[in-house]
């Protein structure tokens, strides 16, 4: 299994660290050089962590664990109006990003209120394209209990963030609710930490399930190949987003055939993945289990 960590440091021996990651069969997922500062997201086999830590120490940089790396998470709010955006919606999304997740934000079309709150089939499909979802609702216990039924319809792991502390619903984190200012106090940061921990548990459960029935190949490997075959345009970031069991690939309309025919080992991408157009952005690649496709090499 791969471990994903963030390296921050100077440019001293920076390329040597990159080489070392490639040597042990790892990947550089993201790289940002800002004058003399560098930041990299590295993925490498778990058992080789010592080698990377030693090299990072040698370069004088720091390594930070990213427990949510490789997961795409949707932050869902009842509406994009001033009642729910920008706080606490953006605070939660920012916190998840700090832990390595790629986040999307979504306001429901008819998510406000108690009796009148609902989710459309298309919204449900968009949420289900991600690995997990965080529903950010308001303060009132009565509303939260009714609205939790909306979330039950969604077929991905989810967390509900609300205000009232005495709410008896599954996957619930209280003490957040409606905010009019940035969550920067200690007790608010603690709540965000708790929310991230709960999401982490759900993601880890899914990772464990995938370990029992491994995928044909790692999304990291497909991402590496896709970045070579269909390189991102200048200035474009995150053209390929990793998910737990696949990828979201943002390509131009005409490139769909090219995508299907990309060679992964001895197989074509369309042989080992279910490829479908996303309801939201790009194409969703769901990698099939190795038990179905056989070995790619």
């Amino acid at each position: 299994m791969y471990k994903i960590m963030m390296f921050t440091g100077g440019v001293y021996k920076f390329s040597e660290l990159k080489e070392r990651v490639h040597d042990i069969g790892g990947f550089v997922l993201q790289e940002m050089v800002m004058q003399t500062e560098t930041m990299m997201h590295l993925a490498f086999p778990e058992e080789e962590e010592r080698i990377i830590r030693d090299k990072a120490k040698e370069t004088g940089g720091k390594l930070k664990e990213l427990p949510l790396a490789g997961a795409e998470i949707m932050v869902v709010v009842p509406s994009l109006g001033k009642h729910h955006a920008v706080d606490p919606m953006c605070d939660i999304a920012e916190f998840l990003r700090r832990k390595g997740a790629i986040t999307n934000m979504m306001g429901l079309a008819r998510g406000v209120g108690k009796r009148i709150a609902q989710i459309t089939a298309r919204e449900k499909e968009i949420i289900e394209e991600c690995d997990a979802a965080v529903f950010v609702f308001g303060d009132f216990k009565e509303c939260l209990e009714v609205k939790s039924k909306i979330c039950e319809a969604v077929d991905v792991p989810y967390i509900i963030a609300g205000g009232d502390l005495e709410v008896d619903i599954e996957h619930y984190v209280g003490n957040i609710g409606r905010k009019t200012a940035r969550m920067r106090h200690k007790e608010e940061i603690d709540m965000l930490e708790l929310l991230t921990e709960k999401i982490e548990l759900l993601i880890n459960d899914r990772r464990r399930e995938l370990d029992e029935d491994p995928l044909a190949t790692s999304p990291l490997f497909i991402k590496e190949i896709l970045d070579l075959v269909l390189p991102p345009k200048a200035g474009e970031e995150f053209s390929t987003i990793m998910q737990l069991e696949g990828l979201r690939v943002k390509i131009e309309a005409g490139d769909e055939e090219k995508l299907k025919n990309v060679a992964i080992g001895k197989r074509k991408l369309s042989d080992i993945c279910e490829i479908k157009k996303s309801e939201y952005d790009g194409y969703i690649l769901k990698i099939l289990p190795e038990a179905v496709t056989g070995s790619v090499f």
Partner: protein
Amino acid sequence: MEVKVEGGGEFCDASYEKICMSTLRDISLDSNIDSVYMNCNAAEHVFIISVKIGRVQSPITVGDMTIKGDERLTVTTETHAPKLLDLLWDRYGEKVEQISRLEIALKIDDDEMQKLMSHVVYDPRVDLNTRIMDGIDRILPEGARVRHPIRSTGRITIIASENPIKEEWKEKAKAMLSKMTKGDS
């Protein structure tokens, strides 16, 4: 500004008190409002909010926000500068030129300039109700879109719900209001 929220439980009351305070402060209404009372009944999804209007700033004249010079005005309070320019362009057209951020050249005679200094640029009383209604809209839960106002002097009271508002709630709100008005006087 005094804020009191009841009926939502300990957490929600405290949270809505914060929401009221910061929302009204954000839209610069905290100095124009004496008190806010809010009653939350999430079980029936009925919210009553009553805002007592306090002292309002007196009208701002050209003389209040500028210093008169030789065929020019120097803006001292920039907040209402766009409104001042609007007024000047409207009255004097091409005779007005904005030289820099705070300097306005004005080719008019001294008498006219003297008259201009007492001209009202902005009267906060004109759009006070609209601004309070905007504040109330930001405070009330988004789903509570059915609104019913209750008339009274010096107060704006709104009942809000996602359901049609029953007579029972109107009566309840009126009772609350009369209790508060007695307290006011």
